[in-house]
């Protein structure tokens, strides 16, 4: 999975766990980045990922990430860009 995002990710998808309610919209839109745990919450698809609330994504996922951020019912998602 980490190979799909390439060595230099386009950005990181940040999950605010205080807000997240596991409604499942982001896991539908980003199946390559996120899987759904038994309680409905999103989980990084890459099990090796060190930071669980900071998911790197590649240029190919850009539009789907934007959709997931816009449609999150709890406003729990933000995009972090490399500085």
């Amino acid at each position: 999975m980490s190979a799909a995002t390439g060595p230099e990710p386009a950005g990181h998808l940040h999950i605010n766990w205080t807000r997240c309610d596991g409604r499942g919209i982001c896991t539908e839109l980003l199946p390559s980045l996120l899987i759904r745990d038994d309680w409905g919450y999103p989980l990084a698809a890459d099990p090796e990922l060190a930071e669980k609330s900071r998911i790197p994504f590649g240029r190919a996922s850009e539009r789907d990430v934007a959709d997931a951020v816009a449609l999150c019912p709890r406003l729990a998602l933000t995009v972090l860009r490399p500085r």
Partner: protein
Amino acid sequence: MDEALWAFGRASGAVSLALFTLSVVLGILVRSGRPLLVLPRFAVTLVHRNVALFALIFLGLHVGTLMLDPYAQLRLVDVVVPFLGAVKPFWQGLGTVALDLAAAVVATSLLRRRLGPGIFRAVHWLTYVLWPVALLHAVGNGTDGTSKWFLLLALAAAAAVGGAGLWRLSPRFLESARLRQEEAS
């Protein structure tokens, strides 16, 4: 031409109410977090939003045509301030109340990211006031409002929203409720 405006004003109001009814039911479904048949969750959210937008377009046409219509005698102030109308001021005023509430819901929906989830949700709850007020406006103010066919449709709409509302309050409403409750107990 006057007859056409009058007829269109009434019909667009009925269409708007029907679309608002569908949007409220879909909104409750969105809150449950469940997909709908072949529609995934994100699509249910988008349909909810787009049906609401269509309802607003017909609401705009409803108010716009009746402002030009000589029977309704609707003035600009009646669009914003309720209960000042020349014809059936109470029932017309309910329509104005619903319009004002709709404006608040739309504004907070568009500014959702800036306002945060708390304000968005609090104002979105006004839909549960908006919808019954709009229904009462339709029945009390509509030319056909108390005719048998309209009352049957109104009753069906009330049953749909009422049923969805009861489901909303039931303990198994949330898709995740079962799993999370079993885990907790």
